[in-house]
């Protein structure tokens, strides 16, 4: 069967093969159990570290593999073929690591990136609060200068890998009256005085990933933990999300592909009215739409990721498109996969119900799909104003 040729280099194909191997050998056999127990997938994280995956996007000089957004997308697509929760845990470390890579001083990069690249320390990204979701400007966590220290106060909500990660990049208000220009980004470490964790959330899907509150209670950190400049917090958060969003699109592609594979296999085996149900057009048309939307998503995600790696700076719109289209497609594809498997699809004995539960988060996290449409719409408005 002909596959679309995406002209991968030999190294990129290697990344695909290795991450697929990890998905099949290490993730798929345990995903149902992890989903049930909500256990943090430390063993798989160790396998990923051993395979050098945490260093994919980190420059060679800090022990990474010098890859870009595209290499990261290739990896998470295959990992998500196995499990979105496990992949999110992996990807969250990149989300937390990007601010240090993009805006960290040379000293900060030297101090943190090698351990991140080696997978010795997981990173978490702390932006969301109970009153600051889509409206990130509602952040209430504050950071106040006190001699050689910053003192942070506030609560971050729904932080992926909270409690498990060693390093946290946290957005806090340094000059509340300046609005969005009054936010700054900080590196907080597990064990810092006044830093603790709230309850572990129980979730519809994404259950193997740990989601917790971060409690900052007069948390004192040395002055040099400020990332970039004072007031750069929102820029850092937005640039980080712009870079990470195609990765969410790629996770959606991997998940949708896994659901399609399950659905086609089942449709070939399931006999009703004396024939395999794939012989019915009703089923064929559903499968055809699923396969087409997956390929279209993949093409969009890959193209956007490659555009980012080519050095394009104005990526907010493209990156939002990749996330929006692929995750909406994944929601539809996984829902249809459950439909094709019928009653079996609804049972936990088959993997598609978990896939459908996991798909939902992709439309919500790293900016809801409504926010993605805002980003695209605002970009269009600006583009056409120039003409």
């Amino acid at each position, binding site marked *: 069967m002909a596959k679309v040729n995406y002209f991968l280099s030999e*190294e990129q194909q*290697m990344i695909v093969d290795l991450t697929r191997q990890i998905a099949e050998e290490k993730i798929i056999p345990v995903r149902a159990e992890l989903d049930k127990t909500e256990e943090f997938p430390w063993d798989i994280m160790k396998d990923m570290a051993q395979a050098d995956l945490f260093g994919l996007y980190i420059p060679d000089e800090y022990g990474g*593999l010098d890859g870009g957004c595209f290499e990261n997308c290739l990896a998470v697509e295959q990992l998500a073929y196995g499990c979105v929760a496990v992949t999110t845990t992996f990807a969250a470390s990149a989300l937390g690591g990007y601010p240090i890579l993009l805006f960290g001083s040379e000293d900060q990069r030297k101090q943190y990136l090698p351990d991140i690249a080696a997978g010795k320390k997981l990173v978490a990204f702390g932006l969301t609060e109970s009153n600051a979701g889509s409206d990130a400007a509602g952040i209430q966590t504050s950071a106040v200068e006190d001699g050689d220290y910053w003192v942070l106060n506030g609560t971050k909500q729904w932080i992926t890998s909270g409690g498990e990660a060693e390093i946290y990049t946290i957005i806090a208000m340094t000059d509340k009256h300046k609005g969005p220009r009054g936010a700054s980004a900080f590196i907080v470490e597990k064990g810092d005085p006044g830093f603790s964790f709230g309850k572990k959330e129980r979730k519809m899907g994404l259950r193997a990933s740990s989601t917790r509150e971060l409690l900052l209670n007069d948390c004192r950190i040395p002055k040099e933990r400020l990332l970039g400049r004072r007031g750069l917090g929102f820029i850092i958060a937005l640039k980080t999300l712009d870079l990470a969003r195609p990765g969410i699109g790629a996770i959606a592609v991997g998940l949708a592909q896994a659901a399609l594979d399950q659905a086609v296999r089942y449709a070939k085996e399931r006999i009703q009215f004396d024939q395999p149900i794939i012989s019915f057009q009703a089923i064929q048309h559903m499968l055809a739409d699923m396969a087409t939307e997956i390929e279209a998503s993949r093409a969009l995600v890959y193209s956007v990721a490659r555009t980012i790696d080519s050095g394009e700076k104005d990526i907010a719109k493209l990156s939002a498109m990749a996330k929006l289209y692929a995750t909406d497609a994944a929601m539809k594809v996984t829902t249809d996969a459950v439909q094709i498997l019928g009653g079996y699809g609804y049972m936990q004995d088959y993997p598609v119900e978990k896939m459908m539960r996991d798909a939902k988060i992709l439309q919500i996290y790293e900016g809801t799909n409504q926010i993605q449409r805002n980003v695209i719409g605002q970009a269009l408005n600006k583009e056409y104003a120039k003409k």
Partner: protein
Amino acid sequence: MKIVVCIKQVPDAKTVRFDTEKGTLVREGVEAVINPFDLNAIEAGVQLKERHGGEVTVVTMGPPQAEEALKEALALGADNGILLSDRAFAGADTLATTYTLAKAVERLAPVDLVLCGKQAIDGDTAQVGPGLAVRLGIPYVTCVSGLSFGDDQKTLRLKRSCEEGYDMVEVEIPALLTVLATINTPRVPSLKGKLRAKKARIPIWSADDLGADHGMIGLAGSPTQVVSTSVPKFEAKREMLQGTPEEQVDALLDRLEEAGIL
């Protein structure tokens, strides 16, 4: 510490098919992979190296495409790979294979430890490991499922699995071990290892490089020959026993007696 791991390429058990007419394996279109037990041997060697230092060299005898298996071994943490490849090696039985491998290990001397998988999943003889040790004149322990070094770094403490439990045995190096799948979980390869492996040049040693006696290698050195092979027919009968648990147990006992098992 210098460790040599001997590996074999076998048809991938996941995709293997049989030609029932000819009674042979269909090899066309079937991927060759590292014999699963040999992956455990590589992992055991790499773990020993990580703990105690040293160097792991992986050796295989096979056609030129067996280079792939050695590159995979490099990606899994081995330091060097050596391919023993020569038309004269073709048709080797286990006796000729052990001779050829022994020549290679001797060329790598001094070697502290030789590791092999328990057996290859295609031939299933489990003869090459022990045969190689005899050729090398070193002690061997088969079916190893656990190992650690004593304080002297000279004595290996081994767990050897047997039918009714396990033995704890000690052996002084140099020695040869064959390992079971239960000894460890082979790691996934690393990207850096794969990139290194891609660039690596695998030396190929011929019969003459080894100084091998041509009468001892390949078909000429193989007193055993496979006369014929056949695909076994599965004729198992299945019978569902009905009734209360007591009735089912009685019926089962009857069947077992009829079959002469009880």
